């Protein structure tokens, strides 16, 4: 069946900001889909609020709407664009929910838009647990025993039937939000209660516990001729009880007989058929009782999921791409397998390697959070590794996490290990459990004991034992023989691990290895276990015999681009964006592009992105081997280290030391910016002021500095990322407490002093992204933070162009940026943070690399900064790029034409995902340590509208009427009066605590006094403010923290208020500056004229205004 001819245009909905459970895998799938649909000649209309995505680059769609993914805004897009069809199965739960809402509101019918991929009915059958269970049973499958509940009474009644423990799962939430394990009635009341609230249908499913069972997943693809194939089987090393996203997973499944596997396969195909997913991908999860093989179907996702991205990378079968093709009518046999180019896509990939995915967590950012792993996803990213066996893949995946705690470590003395306590510790799944399992093995635990404690399949336990046996050989050997070295490499040991065991440096081990000729070969991911020749160079390393790297075409030079590794807070999709752009730009400029990365969620690890892909850990050892292999294949112009964030930047010096050419900013220049003393001299030479500062290793030293420069001071340990451990300290006591804490946990010591900076209290913070070619500076964009100084730039919302800075100030910024770029010797991108206080422009920090804001700036100014940067790094000048049309012929991001739109970036915080050990949500407070996972962009002609859009995209729309609760710190009282008065004038009812109410009354603003949480309920049951928020009697919360430091004083009231707002999804403004912006947003919304406009239309308008 060929392509349908009745569809000319398709609306694709993206997944919005990166949040836990929904990350850049949907940029990967969405980008693939947009590419395919355009190649098929369809007009593609895209809605996605996330500016950091590749899919929102204007060249990937005909009309790109960076607008909130809410039914209201998407309806506006539909009304304007009138697409024939809507494809919502590639944008995660966000897109699916939005499509469902549009259908329910009659929008799809009104505009005659056909939902393609999965129908509303199919989505409901797949996602409604009761319906789904019935389907499974009709097909002869089994589900876990369960009861569906709509009220607390239902929950308690069901508990009698099922018995504790039980799994609590709210319906229609994403990434398992609100689900958990109830061991007793108190758990049930708490988890079940919030589950009912979290579910859009007030529906919670209670289930018999199948904790400890083996867990599997199958990825299925179906076309409209009812051809179905299984793309990939995935097995979880962590048994049932841990969310798949938080589990170590393996592909293919390794511990199933064919009979068991085929039973799953038969069920999967029967289910996709019965649910009625007409075309596209879906995944189905299973549990198997290890004792008797009882097979239970857990759930299905009637859409492309995180696992689909993993399965695509694990097999070379691009699920989203194929899903898009079958959605528009092709059948699988009509679609070519890209990798073999001679066989069709109507087959099932077979692997001759093992893939391991490991999660990356961010508990260090949320010290109060309970690190136990449950059915509620908590990881913020993942790394994948490929090896020719499990041990190799596992050890590669652990070092891909880039956490020094992740890889197995035999350094610890044996006597430190206590078997009994280790066996106890590994009973509860947590980040780092696998390492504890290894320690337990070292401590003499038997495989049976490990299985009893963890329920990890005995085959996997034996593989861990095997790794340990190799380690023991390394420890015991009198000398490191070639055979032993080869054996260790074959089981995935890094040079560093071997070196640590043998008391040698990784460099020495590498030298020995190279002298002995022990190097990895590079195999190919080819979908077919070598049955057919692969045409796509998608490689992974293995210590095996034969390498498959092909010689480079005559006359071509290669550039190797290092990616950013697993997503983490502070380093995510934004860096992948820059790497992908570099690859595209350098391919255009005639280079052979080679990508190295280990993050399966990304566009960069799509084999379509670069000429060659190496799916490898980003460590010096692994990268050096790739460089070597590529140098054997042909000329390599150099390695790009400045686009993937801190990860590749950290490798630059090591690569340079090994004689590898680094393109762009040199490692020396990078060092200059990172080393405080050297950077201070650069600033002094340029005559630029920095806030007064000093370094200390003890409290007395720190106190002396603080007194010298004056409180408040900003303190942070040196050599940390993402503002880790950064706090604003207002007095001696807090400073002493801070030092005590960080000296105790080892983050501050003689080699890593604490940095003490003057904190510029009333400053306006400014972020700048610039491009420097050695002569000319191209000011990419100047962003003004909306929040007060002291909030991490990644968490702060900002506006571009800056809303309160004048031309003169921008010129000062330009001059300072150029002076720093020149002083450091930048070739490529740099990011500088300035603070403007009392008319002095202070330099806070400079990073000679692509920053988090590059994609935002690129989109807001319609300039491909990362592409230009890649070409500058390889020697082109800004003038040349202006001529070539890569950069605008004149002007830059500091001189945007009149009438340019305003872009507002808003950060999205993960507070709702983290609970403390006693089940409360962590405090939803912004501070100097970055904690956001993603961002959105609001784009419009004026600031208020852009801000309102950004809010709508990040948190749901601001209310148009209703009740607004106000409680601000004393220092903010003066500044709140005017904006609160404006809100009251708009007709909102103001609620306030007694103190705030009094101030308002004196200024002529009437408000209703509500009880503080600390006051408790009133004599007649009057609710406290927290009670009112939890009962959704408040529509907007304005609460600025009363304490002086983040994480310091308890500030109970504020914490409870903000947490309640997060729990109930009520917009909560925590800064006075944010309040001012919100007032502008409310005004814009109340005017009721907020429209939508595509990036392409904005660009056309800008072009028109230039020619006028």
């Amino acid at each position, binding site marked *: 069946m060929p392509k349908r001819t009745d569809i000319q245009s398709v609306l694709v909905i993206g997944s919005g900001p990166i949040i836990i459970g929904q990350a850049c895998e949907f940029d990967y799938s969405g980008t693939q889909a947009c590419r395919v649909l355009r190649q098929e000649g369809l007009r593609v209309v895209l809605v996605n609020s996330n500016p950091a995505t590749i899919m929102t680059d204007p060249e990937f769609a005909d009309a790109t709407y960076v607008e909130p993914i809410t039914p209201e805004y998407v309806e506006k897009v539909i009304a304007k664009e009138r697409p024939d069809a809507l494809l919502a199965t590639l944008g995660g739960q966000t897109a699916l929910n939005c499509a469902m809402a549009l259908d329910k509101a009659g929008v799809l019918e009104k505009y005659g838009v056909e939902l393609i991929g999965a129908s509303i009915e199919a989505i409901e059958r797949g996602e409604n647990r009761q319906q789904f269970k019935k389907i499974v049973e009709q097909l002869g499958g089994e589900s876990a025993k369960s009861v569906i509940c709509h009220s607390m009474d239902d929950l308690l009644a069901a508990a009698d039937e099922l018995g504790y423990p039980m799994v609590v799962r709210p319906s229609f939430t994403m990434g398992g939000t609100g689900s958990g394990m109830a061991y007793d009635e108190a758990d049930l009341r708490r988890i079940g209660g919030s589950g009912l609230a979290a579910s859009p249908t007030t529906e919670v499913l209670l289930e018999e516990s199948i904790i400890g069972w083996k867990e599997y997943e199958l990825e299925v693809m179906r076309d409209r*001729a*009812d*051809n179905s*194939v*299984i793309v990939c089987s995935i097995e979880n090393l962590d048994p049932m009880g841990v969310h798949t996203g938080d589990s170590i997973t393996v592909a*293919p*499944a*390794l*511990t*199933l*007989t*064919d*009979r068991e*596997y*085929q039973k799953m*396969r*038969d069920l999967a195909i029967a289910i996709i058929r019965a649910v009625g997913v007409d075309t596209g991908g879906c995944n189905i999860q299973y549990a198997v009782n*290890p*004792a008797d*093989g009882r097979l239970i179907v857990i759930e299905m996702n009637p859409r492309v999921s995180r696992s689909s991205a993993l399965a695509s990378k694990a097999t070379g079968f691009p699920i989203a791409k194929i899903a898009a093709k079958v959605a528009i009518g092709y*059948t699988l*046999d009509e679609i070519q397998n890209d990798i073999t180019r001679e*066989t*069709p896509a*109507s*087959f*099932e*990939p*077979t*692997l*001759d*390697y*093992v893939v391991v995915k490991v999660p990356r967590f961010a508990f260090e950012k949320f010290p109060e959070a309970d690190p136990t792993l449950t059915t509620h996803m908590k990881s913020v990213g993942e790394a994948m590794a490929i090896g*020719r*066996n*499990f041990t190799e893949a596992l050890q590669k995946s652990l070092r891909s996490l880039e956490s020094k705690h992740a890889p197995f470590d035999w350094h610890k003395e044996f006597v430190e290990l206590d078997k009994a306590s280790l066996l106890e510790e590994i009973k509860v799944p947590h980040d780092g459990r696998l390492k504890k399992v290894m320690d337990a093995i070292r401590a003499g635990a038997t*495989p049976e004991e490990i299985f009893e404690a963890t329920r990890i*399949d*005995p*085959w996997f*336990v*034996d593989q861990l034992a*095997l790794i340990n*046996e*190799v380690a023991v*050989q390394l420890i015991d050997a009198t000398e490191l023989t070639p055979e032993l070295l*080869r*054996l260790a490499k*074959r*089981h995935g040991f890094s040079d560093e691990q071997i070196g640590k065991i043998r008391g040698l440096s990784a460099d020495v081990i590498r030298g020995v290895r190279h002298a002995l000729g022990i190097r990895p070969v590079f*195999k190919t991911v080819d979908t*077919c*276990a*070598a*049955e*057919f*020749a692969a045409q796509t160079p998608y490689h992974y390393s293995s210590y*095996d*015999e*034969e390498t498959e790297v092909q010689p480079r075409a005559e006359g071509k030079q290669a550039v190797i681009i290092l990616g950013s590794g697993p997503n983490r807070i502070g380093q995510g999709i934004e860096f992948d964006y820059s790497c992908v752009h570099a690859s595209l730009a350098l391919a255009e400029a005639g280079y052979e592009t080679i990508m190295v990365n280990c993050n399966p969620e990304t566009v960069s690890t799509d084999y379509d992105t670069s000429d060659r892909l190496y799916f490898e850990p980003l460590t010096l050892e692994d990268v050096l081997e790739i460089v070597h292999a590529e140098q054997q294949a042909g000329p390599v112009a150099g390695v790009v280290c400045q686009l993937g964030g801190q990860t590749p930047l950290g490798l630059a010096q090591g690569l340079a030391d090994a004689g590898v050419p680094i393109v762009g900013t040199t490692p020396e220049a990078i060092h200059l910016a990172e080393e405080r003393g050297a950077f201070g001299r650069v600033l002094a030479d340029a005559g630029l002021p920095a806030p007064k500062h000093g370094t200390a290793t003890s409290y007395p030293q720190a106190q002396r500095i603080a007194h010298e420069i004056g409180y408040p001071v900003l303190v942070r340990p040196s050599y940390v990322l993402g503002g880790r451990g950064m706090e604003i300290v207002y007095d001696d006591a807090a400073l002493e407490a801070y030092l005590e804490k960080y000296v105790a946990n080892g983050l501050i010591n003689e080699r890593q002093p604490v940095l003490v900076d003057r904190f510029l209290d009333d400053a306006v913070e400014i972020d700048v992204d610039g491009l420097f070619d050695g002569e000319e500076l191209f000011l990419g964009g100047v962003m003004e933070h909306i929040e007060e100084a002291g909030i991490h730039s990644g968490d702060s919302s900002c506006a571009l162009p800056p809303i309160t800075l004048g031309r003169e100030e921008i010129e000062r910024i330009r001059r300072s940026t150029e002076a720093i770029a020149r002083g450091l010797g930048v070739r490529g991108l740099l990011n500088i943070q300035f603070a403007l206080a009392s008319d002095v422009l202070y330099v806070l920090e400079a990073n000679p690399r692509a920053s988090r804001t590059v994609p935002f700036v690129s989109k807001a100014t319609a300039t491909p900064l990362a592409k230009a940067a890649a070409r500058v790094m390889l020697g082109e000048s800004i003038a040349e790029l202006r001529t070539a049309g890569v950069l605008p012929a004149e002007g830059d991001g500091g001189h945007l034409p009149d009438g340019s739109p305003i872009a507002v970036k808003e950060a999205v915080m993960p507070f709702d995902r983290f609970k403390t050990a006693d089940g409360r949500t962590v405090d939803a407070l912004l501070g100097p340590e970055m904690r956001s996972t993603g961002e959105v962009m609001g784009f419009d002609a004026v600031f208020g509208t852009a801000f309102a859009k950004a809010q709508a995209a990040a948190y749901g729309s601001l209310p148009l009427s209703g009740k607004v609760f106000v409680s601000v710190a004393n220092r903010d009282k003066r500044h709140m009066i005017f904006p609160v008065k404006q809100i009251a004038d708009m007709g909102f009812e103001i609620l306030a605590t007694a103190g705030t109410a009094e101030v308002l009354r004196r200024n002529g603003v009437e408000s209703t006094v509500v009880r503080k949480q600390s006051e408790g309920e009133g004599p007649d049951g009057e609710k406290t403010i927290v009670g009112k928020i939890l009962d959704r009697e408040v529509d907007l919360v304005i609460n600025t923290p009363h304490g002086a430091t983040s994480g310091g004083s308890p500030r109970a009231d504020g914490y409870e208020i903000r947490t309640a707002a997060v729990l109930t999804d009520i917009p909560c403004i925590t800064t006075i500056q944010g309040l001012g912006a919100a007032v502008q947003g409310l005004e814009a919304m109340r005017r009721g004229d907020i429209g939508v406009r595509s990036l392409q239309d904005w660009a056309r308008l800008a072009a028109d205004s230039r020619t006028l």
Partner: protein
Amino acid sequence: MALPAKNLTAALLVLEDGRTFRGESFGAEGETFGEAVFSTGMSGYQETLTDPSYHRQVVVMTAPHVGNTGMNDEDVESSRIWVAGYVVRDPARVPSNWRSVRTLDDDLRDQGVVGISGVDTRALTRHLRERGAMRVGISTTETDPERLLARVLESGEMAGANLSEAVSTAEAYVVPAVGEKRFTVAAVDLGIKANTPRMMSERGIEVHVLPATASLEDVQAVSPDGLFFSNGPGDPAATTGQVELLQGALRAGIPYFGICFGNQLFGRALGFGTYKLKYGHRGINQPVMDRTTGKVEVTAHNHGFAVDAPLEGATTTEFGEVAVSHVCLNDDVVEGLELRDADGALRSFSVQYHPEAAAGPHDAAYLFDRFVDLMTSSTSGRKDA
């Protein structure tokens, strides 16, 4: 090199073109020769090992980990392991499955099957893909590749080999129908897998499994409603007796269903030639299109030979019109034949692949139903007449 224990016995693998791989002994020690073929299935090694079609073949597993689920008593497809040798990369040290009763290594040892582990199976597979299936030797006693190569070159070739009798049952036996008996089928065992009679019996068929030496009289003696030829090893061109038997049965109007070797013999009985594929189809992920329905099925394959029949149009034979019913979408190899009478009614059919699966997907199980339908229409036709 999967086992870190010291003092592993070294093993040597030499292909007939001289390419050599070194690894460690796996399974029995000794020396073995056969045709080197690779199998790409990721599950079902127990079924593969016990599939008689692999007689005289040395099987290279592309999946690196083999033996993880041990061996059980239910998943065997015949009474013994048939492969002549086994090549794996990382054999399991500890099996894990609730049904497992022995380890793979034990079974290989007990049955004297020589294997080798720790070799770059992907490199070996790529070599076979590029150069074609060829003879191979594995030895744990020979250390000199030259000497082993000489013995490889002396070993027998697959082309021209008639192996049916070596793998067939010596005595006829009956697999009773499950539930009410609807039909009787004479199934000639040319290397039959246990799941084939099982799937027939589940459909109310009483299966009389006959030795490969069975004559038309032996077949007719069971008064069959249908005749079945199983899968099996060897070169179809080296077989004449069964071809004649089949022609006789077709003349007698007995509906026929053939699988794999049974497809090749059907082709030959209808006057087509057969040929050896460069490296064969061995895996459980092969896309086949049923041209009668346009549906694609993912199927289990294990064949080194194929029928040479025109892909388009029907060929007129003395038995009726023959057309290619199934095609492999990877390489357009003939995967099924059907014979229709002048009225267009189906008389007989066969497939080159394995609807009985084991190991592999169950997508093609409908072919057993098609056989039942064929016998239903054929018996009702006879009764009417």
